[in-house]
């Protein structure tokens, strides 16, 4: 039985080749005339633009409104270089093309980087505006520079583009987007869209990946621009204005933000349609606008949502192979690189995690003060206190979400105060959240795989070209991820979407994901919240398993006292941002201050409760 991957490669390559041969021969024979071949080429160019914009807007989830600006940079750069090289050096224009295109792409990428670094610090609406602003600035600058021909732009660019060139570049871009998407870098980008806070807490540097996605997208827009310049023969900055950016945005939205297949289809349809409906050219933008509105109101997911078309899947269905499922060869036969297991060195008797006079002040409010706690290896420690006591604030400080204003945090003897969240994850702290933060539209398995990010090494290049390191490491995390799920009895749900799981399972998944980063300390923020008694009991078992199997220490925030008293070995009680008690569960239960803090009082003293004793206390 053929290896699934090999089959997929062969199928896709054949399809690409066949399509090419068909169209090429139609063009060569004259059955498709110059006008229509021109349209096909424009479709190719627009597919590249749409797919690259989809990386930013669909995969990363950030609305970018200046994409045409990068196309512009690429177009002008490529056009100028070809003209210069062929005019002054006498090179054959066609031979210049690779250099020009590459230069255009690189310069566009540089612009993307320069714009991205400041712009991506902002979010949502602000990011959209600032990219719009930058796009317009680019346009104005280009329109006012000598080298770009001022307001009239550049003309008489050798029109050396043709169908084969465009087609193969388009295919290359599509393939790169697919392989990037399936690599750990693509997963990282998707996780940012799903839940940026969770992504950061799973070890992903959100800022770095945003800039990466933005720059990468700009690169391909630049290449598309270069192709455009060599197709049309003249470029002026006015062509690449805000309207053009919107046209590509419409294509992305129509196809489905996050679906490459959708982008291809939408780009093709929306390039073809205006040509076919030339008489209705006046109505084109009108129809676009109505379409945008209707799509957002009734089908915001677009044509494909986030789904992709799989040729292999269709083939299997058609040839009946689908029923006879191919058994994957046991992975252990292949070379496998497991994700890193960090070597945590700990001095004997020393705590794994320790805070010294930790505190934080927000404006006039001292949210936490003089917090001294420690967690020893393999301990399960509880952090409890009434609502608003500051427990999550402490967690946020431990994970680098807040910067403490006083005190220090030491992990394995080294200070981590002031480090960024994703760095702290690499150093060995993992956490879950009060409100579950899963990557909702990703599968259970993918959620876990994202967490292995810090423990992997292969580069984007490795991922895109599927070099051996990529294959080995991906196999490794696949094995490890399934192992983890098995420990938690979740292996059957591996391919289920995270938001399709029942609530209790979602919580388990979040914990499982945190463990995938191979931490030394696991912080659980109200893991039992919203659970019924049965689920809570299961959770207690789970935490027990974790402590034994995974060589971690656990610090948990909880309100469910059965859980806390049932599994914690030591408990800290927080009230008004200060620790008011520390001790074993029975110590805490009988501590009058704790009772006062929780149950309240109407008298000034409260008698301690002995276990099993009926109490007439008021």
């Amino acid at each position, binding site marked *: 039985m053929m290896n699934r991957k090999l089959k997929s490669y062969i199928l896709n390559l054949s399809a690409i080749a066949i399509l090419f041969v068909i169209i090429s021969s139609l063009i060569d024979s004259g059955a498709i005339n110059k006008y229509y071949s021109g349209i096909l080429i424009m479709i190719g160019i627009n597919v590249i633009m749409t797919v690259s914009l989809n990386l930013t807007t669909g995969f990363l989830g950030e*609305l970018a409104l200046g994409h045409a600006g990068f196309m512009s940079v690429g177009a002008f750069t490529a056009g100028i270089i070809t003209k210069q090289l062929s005019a002054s050096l006498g090179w054959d224009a066609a031979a210049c093309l690779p250099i020009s295109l590459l230069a255009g792409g690189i310069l566009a990428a540089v612009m993307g980087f320069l714009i991205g670094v400041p712009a991506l610090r902002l979010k949502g609406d*602000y990011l959209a*505006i600032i990219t719009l602003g930058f796009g317009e600035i680019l346009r*104005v600058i280009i329109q006012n520079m000598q080298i770009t021909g001022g307001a009239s732009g550049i003309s008489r660019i050798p029109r050396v583009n043709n169908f084969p060139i465009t087609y193969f570049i388009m295919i290359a871009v599509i393939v790169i987007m697919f392989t990037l998407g399936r690599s750990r870098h693509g997963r990282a980008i998707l996780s940012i869209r799903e839940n940026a806070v969770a992504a950061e807490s799973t070890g992903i540097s959100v800022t770095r990946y945003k800039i990466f996605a933005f720059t990468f997208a700009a690169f391909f827009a630049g290449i598309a621009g270069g192709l455009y310049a060599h197709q049309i023969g003249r470029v002026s900055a006015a062509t690449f204005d805000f309207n053009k950016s919107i046209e590509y945005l419409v294509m992305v939205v129509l196809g489905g933000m996050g679906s490459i297949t959708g982008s291809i289809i939408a780009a093709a349809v929306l390039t073809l349609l205006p040509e076919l409906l030339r008489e209705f050219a*006046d109505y084109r933008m009108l129809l676009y*606008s109505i379409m945008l509105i209707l799509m*957002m109101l009734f089908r915001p997911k677009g044509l494909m949502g986030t789904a992709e078309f799989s040729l292999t899947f269709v083939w299997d269905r058609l040839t009946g192979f689908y029923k006879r499922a191919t058994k994957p060869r046991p992975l252990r036969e292949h070379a496998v690189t497991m994700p890193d297991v960090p070597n945590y060195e700990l001095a004997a008797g020393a705590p794994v995690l320790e805070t010294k006079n930790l505190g934080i002040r927000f404006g006039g409010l001292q949210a936490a003060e003089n917090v001294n706690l420690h967690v020893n290896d393999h301990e399960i420690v509880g952090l409890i206190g009434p609502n608003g006591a500051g427990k999550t604030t402490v967690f946020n400080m431990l994970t680098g979400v807040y910067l403490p204003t006083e005190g220090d945090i030491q992990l394995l003897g080294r200070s981590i105060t002031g480090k960024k969240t994703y760095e702290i994850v690499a150093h060995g702290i993992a956490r879950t959240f009060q409100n579950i933060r899963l990557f909702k539209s990703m599968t259970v398995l993918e959620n876990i795989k994202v967490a292995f990010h810090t423990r992997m090494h292969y580069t984007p290049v490795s991922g895109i070209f599927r070099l051996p390191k990529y294959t080995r490491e991906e196999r490794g995390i696949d094995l490890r991820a399934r192992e983890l799920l098995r420990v938690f009895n979740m292996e059957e749900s591996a391919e289920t979407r995270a938001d399709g799981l029942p609530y209790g399972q979602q919580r388990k998944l979040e914990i499982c994901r945190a463990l995938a980063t191979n931490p030394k300390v696991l912080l659980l923020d109200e893991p039992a919240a919203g659970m019924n008694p049965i689920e809570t009991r299961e959770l207690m078992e789970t935490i027990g398993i974790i402590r034994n199997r995974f060589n971690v220490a656990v610090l948990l925030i909880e309100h469910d006292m059965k859980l806390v008293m049932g599994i914690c070995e030591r408990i800290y009680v927080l009230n008004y941002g200060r620790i008011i008690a520390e001790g074993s569960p029975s110590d805490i239960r009988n501590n009058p201050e704790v009772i006062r803090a929780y149950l309240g009082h109407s008298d000034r003293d409260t008698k301690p409760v002995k276990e099993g004793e009926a109490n007439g206390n008021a």
Partner: protein
Amino acid sequence: MVLFLNQLINGLGTGAIYALIALGYTMVYGIVKLINFAHGDIMMVGSYTAVLLMVNVGVPFPIALMASMFVCVFFGVLIERVAYKPLRDAPRICSLITAIGVSYLLQNSAQLLFSANPKPFPPVFSVAPITFGGVSISFVTLVTVLVSVLLMVGLNLFVMKSRTGKAMRAVSEDMGAAKLMGINVNMTISTTFAIGCALAGIGAFLYCIAYPSVAPTMGAMPGLKAFIAAVLGGIGILPGAMLGGFIMGVAESLTKGFVSTQLSDAVVYGILIVVLLFKPSGLLGKAQREKV
């Protein structure tokens, strides 16, 4: 020096118009957290109303002004109910895209109905400019600045003192709590849109007096600049919109006078970018913290 003062005065005139339009953006953003990309195009709709009434029907300008405001309000409230209200709980990207769609819809409808050719706006005033020492203040600029400032002061009073104004502020802060007060949130939001659009209608009229030409895409640039003004001052904050508007107008005018006309757009965007990078919440805005 004379050139500087003249440019400054022109800038204040344009700035006043930007401020009026910016107020509409900022009020809407403040209450529903939506950037109404179509706001500038509402202004265009108002301009067409005025021009058609005055030129084709021969209506005197005060009535045309009223009609312009009325039409803007009508469209604004309609758009809110049909296109924005259903998306109030949807991800922000959806409302942004819808707003873009509405903007294009208005522009292209106007283009189909009235052709892309600009129509001239009839002169409304023919009063000589006031001059002293080489510095000249046109009557239009004077009226524009005066009216704008009066409207801004009036709006501020309304929002601070009136029952509806306070309701608007309450809804902007906490929609749920406002409902608990018995405030009809949907009505309040519609009122906000209405007021914002009414101001846009007046702004449109003043703009056409200063730049007497009406075209389907006329709203795009001033709309964008007014929007930038609102962000510059701190989006959601009324005094911010006013401040931002005047800064934009003056910056644009001075650039046109002292640097170059073509680069004035770039300068304007440049200011926006610099401000957003150093103070993302705008000049008068307060930083927001995400709850983890």
